[in-house]
Every structure is written in structure tokens, then in C-alpha cells.
């Protein structure tokens, strides 16, 4: 795993453990935070003489610095049947391994919550720093064929810690908007990074002419379409409208989604992450 996700926090982590992200703790750091009395922060090396002289109570003022803290990184993955389409499952696995490796590189803890019809314990990985457990989970996931719907997403928040964490939400968002609204509402305490996984095969790569019988992967309904250029344009337009609606909804919850439609690329996600913190 050579590629790393360069995620940065636009907020301060409340974690007490030193790490790589701006935190609320004070300690060994480079960024001046405030002055404190010597009694609160007994470090004579950091006594600020000028501030001490100017202090009306004539006490010693000590400069304290912001400590770089760690953050808990979670990946909430939609494991419904529609995520088994084309190469979405492979993308999920690659992203799982990349994100876990990046988190461990930063010294952060990484956890995984897989959501199907409900949340199953075998697809839960509590925040930790063992890559072995992540890769074991990945091998298990590789063998799994996804079934059912993504209703479990709404309960994912119960498995997240109380303090603000960084949450990657990886889904194809193929469920009704109210359901997505409920999911995002429940995750508001956390920093959510929505990654919407679509495949070109779903809409853009449809043929211009022909009869196709589609079977829904989740409810097994079938619909036969007589494909022709006009209908293909209509389908593409429907997907674009859906993309527009999704963006609108995500923005209402303060997060900009990243649509992964042309195959997985860590670079593309990194570019998006950099724009996000800028």
C-alpha cells in the first residue's frame, strides 16, 4: 500500500493522545496557543519575560503551545446488494486498505462499520491500530457477496464514539433521499466525508440500441427497456439530476460529496481532501 490519503482536519481534535492533527490539548507543539500562569503549566523554559513584566498581578506567564493530536477515523461502508455491482466491491476493499494504512501512518486509530440490512458484528471493527485485523476483515469482505438493502446505515452512529471523529461514508446512495437525510442527521456530531460510488456501466456506458432486461439487485424487480439514443440520454439525465439532488442534500448538512464514477483513484480523493481543508 504505497498510496496515502492526505486527510487534514479543518477542526480541532479533542483527543488527548498526540498525533498529527490540530487538537484542543496543549503540550509539545509549534503553534503558540496562549499564556498560562506558571503554576498551571510548570515549565520554566517557556516563561515569557515580556508577558510576565506586563502582567498586572506580577505573576509568571508561561507560553503554551497547541499539541498535535490524533483523531479516530471511521469508514462507514454501505454493503447493500447494489454495492456488489461492477467493481464497487473492489473499490470498497481498496479504499478500506488505503484508508486504514493512511490512518496508521498518521498514528490515528481506524475503525470500520459495515452496514447491510442491519449492522452485523462480524462487519464491525472497533477503532484500533492493528493492520492485521484490517487485512483479515478485507479478506473476509472479498469473499462476501453483498445482499439486501442499506437500512443499517441509520444505526451506524451507535457504534461511533461520542467525541467528534472523522467519518468516511462510502456508499452509492441508491436509496431514497429521506433515508439519506436521516443518516446524515444522525452523523452530524462527526466530520463526515461522503464518497458516492457510481459506475459508468450503470448509465453512461449503456448501449445506444438494443433490448435490455434489467433486474434490480436489491428487490429483484425486472424492467425491460428498448434502448435507443433518446432513452439513453434520458437515463444519463436522470443520473445527473440524482447527482444534483444528492449534492444539494449533502451540502445542506455541511459536507461536499465526492462522486467516484470513473474508477477508484487515491489521487482523485487526495485532490478532493485538499480542496476540502483549503
Amino acid at each position: 500500500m504505497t498510496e496515502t490519503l492526505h486527510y487534514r482536519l479543518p477542526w480541532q481534535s479533542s483527543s488527548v493522545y498526540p498525533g498529527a492533527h490540530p487538537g484542543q490539548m496543549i503540550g509539545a507543539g509549534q503553534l503558540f496557543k496562549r499564556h498560562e500562569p506558571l503554576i498551571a503549566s510548570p515549565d520554566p523554559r517557556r516563561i515569557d519575560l515580556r508577558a510576565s513584566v506586563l502582567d498586572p498581578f506580577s505573576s509568571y506567564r508561561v507560553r503554551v503551545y497547541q499539541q498535535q493530536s490524533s483523531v479516530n477515523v471511521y469508514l462507514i461502508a454501505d454493503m447493500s446488494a447494489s454495492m456488489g455491482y461492477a467493481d464497487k466491491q473492489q473499490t470498497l476493499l481498496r479504499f478500506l486498505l488505503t484508508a486504514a494504512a493512511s490512518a496508521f501512518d498518521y498514528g490515528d486509530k481506524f475503525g470500520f462499520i459495515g452496514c447491510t440490512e442491519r449492522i452485523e458484528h462480524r462487519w464491525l471493527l472497533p477503532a484500533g491500530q492493528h493492520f492485521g485485523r484490517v487485512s483479515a476483515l478485507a479478506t473476509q469482505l472479498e469473499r462476501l457477496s453483498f445482499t439486501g438493502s442499506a437500512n443499517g446505515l441509520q444505526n451506524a452512529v451507535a457504534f461511533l464514539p461520542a467525541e467528534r471523529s472523522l467519518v468516511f461514508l462510502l456508499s452509492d446512495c441508491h436509496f431514497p433521499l429521506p433515508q439519506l437525510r436521516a443518516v446524515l442527521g444522525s452523523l452530524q456530531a462527526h466530520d463526515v466525508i461522503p464518497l458516492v460510488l457510481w459506475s459508468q456501466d450503470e448509465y453512461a456506458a449503456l448501449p445506444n440500441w438494443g433490448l435490455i432486461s434489467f433486474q434490480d439487485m436489491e428487490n429483484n424487480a425486472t424492467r425491460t427497456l428498448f434502448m435507443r439514443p433518446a432513452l439513453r440520454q434520458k437515463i444519463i439525465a436522470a443520473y445527473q439530476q440524482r447527482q444534483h439532488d444528492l449534492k444539494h442534500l449533502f451540502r445542506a448538512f455541511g459536507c461536499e460529496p465526492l462522486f467516484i464514477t470513473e474508477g477508484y483513484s487515491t489521487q482523485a480523493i487526495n485532490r478532493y481532501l485538499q480542496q476540502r481543508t483549503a
Partner: protein
Amino acid sequence: MNLAVNSPWALSGLLLALLPLFNSGMRTSPAPWLTLMPGDKLSVFVICCLRLCAMAAIAGLVLGMAGLHRTEQSRERIGHGAHIVLLLDRSSSMDNTFAGRAPNGSDESKATAARRLLTDFVEQRQNDLIGVAEYSTSPLFVMPLTENKNAVQAAIAATATPALGFTHVSKGLGMAISFFEQQPVTGSRIVLLVSDGAAAIDHDSEVKLREWFRKQQVRLYWIFLRTANSPGIFDQPEDSRDDNAAAMPERYLHKFFLGLGSPYQAYEAESPDALKQAIADINRLENLPMHYVERIPKQDLSGTCYSIASLLLLVLLGVKFFEVKR
């Protein structure tokens, strides 16, 4: 439209025609979320059509196997025409030419000329019921009264076989008249006698023929194909000793016909052209309105069923090639 089948139990296979309702027969492609796909009326229409095609194809095959047919029917029709019985002389003298010789390249025989002209005649009389009888030593029943012109023409063509010996005209006439029994009296009834000679009619036959002609209201046309130098119908005997039925049968037969009381017309044809003229006369005269019952035979529809089914299957096969699998 009276439809029937040969083996009704095979119709239980019609239940199979419901199969396309449950199975489209297409390979499905996975779709992540069908709700996103916009609805399309044309697709629904096309699919409905294909389902109907498939159902019709199965139904066609089953009906074909069950042996669908249309039962025999009769239809009442009204036309201008007549019931005509062609009574043909099959004596061997008919195989000679009008000049009384065996036919060679330039002259046709009397039988050939009659055959050719009668074929044309039948062709023109589209609404008639025509029957064919022949006589020589004894009467030959050939074809009852029918509207099937092909059959009549085939019957006329069959007289091309070599002819037989004698001329027994009274029995032939009896048979021709018997054709009209159990036929409704509509239009005109004609016996068209084509002969090249005559024979004496005995007394008993004369009585019977008189009665039958009166009862059946039959008109008689006699086309006498006169051979050169032979006695004609209208010839007066030169010698009163020859004035008897044995010596001049043509004259006496003509006299007998005149005395029948029913309409009678005689033509003496001495060449193919005269024969043609006589037939044209009859053609012009006999056009009274008549109504008759046309019988339509049982029609086997299983072939149609199979061809419709195979056509539909061909369409479905073409659609199958049009199918996309992803």
C-alpha cells in the same frame, strides 16, 4: 366461420400460451437501482407487443397441432346463368375430322374442336352449374352439376381418350336429365347435346323422355357436327322409301325433339367455325337469373397456424439477436 379442431385434447396446450406472462425469456442484467431508471412508454409498448407475439406463436403452434380447420359450409349465391349438362357423343366417328377423315396436321378432329370450344364456353360461364355426361354404347356418368370449373374442364379434357363404338343417344339423354333431379328449379336448365350422328329411339324410351323433359323443364340444344356428305338434320329424303328412322336417324331424332313440347334448338355445324357460332348463340341466350348454393369445402387451417407461428417465432428470434446482455 365455423372453426373446429381434430384433436380437442391438444387444446389443453393453450395453457402454455400463458407462459410469456410469467417469463420474459430474456437474460437479465443486474441494475443497482431501478427506481433511477426513467419510465419509458415505448419500451412498455414494445414489451407488450413481444409478449403478445410470444403468446400468439405458442397458441398458433398448439392450434396447428390440434388441427384447426374450417368446417364445410354452403353459401347461397345469386347469379345469371343456367344449369347446363354437356352431353357428349363418344362414338368413334367423333375422332374424325369434319371431312370424315382421320385427323392430320392441318385439320382437327370433331372431338378436339368440340373439346376446345366447350372449354372456352365453360370458361365464359362463370356462374353456371355445369355437369358432364357422355354416351356411346351406354351412358357414362362423368361429372355431376358443379360450380367447380376446373373439374368441368378436366372432365372435358378427359374426352381426349380414344372413343368407343356405338351411339346410344336415348340413354345418354336419360342420364343427362337425371342430373336435374333433386336440384332446385332456378335459372334455366339446359342439356347441350354435342354429337355427330344419331340413332333411332325406341318407343318406350320416347315415352319416358317426353315425360322427363316435361317434368324437369329442360331446354335442349343439339349441336350436330355434320360430316361432309352425310345426311343432315334438315335434309328431306329424296326417296320416300328412305323416309324412316332407320335410314335417316338424324331427321327423325330432330322431329322427335321438336315434338317434345319443351324449348328446343338445333344447330348443324359443318366446320369448327359453325360450331363456335352455335356455342356463342347459346352463351348469349341462356342468361336468366338464378340462385344456387355454393358449397365451400372444409379448409385445413393448421398450415396457416404454423406459418403464422413460424413468422412470429422469426420475429422473436430477430428480437433475440437484438437483445443486449451486460
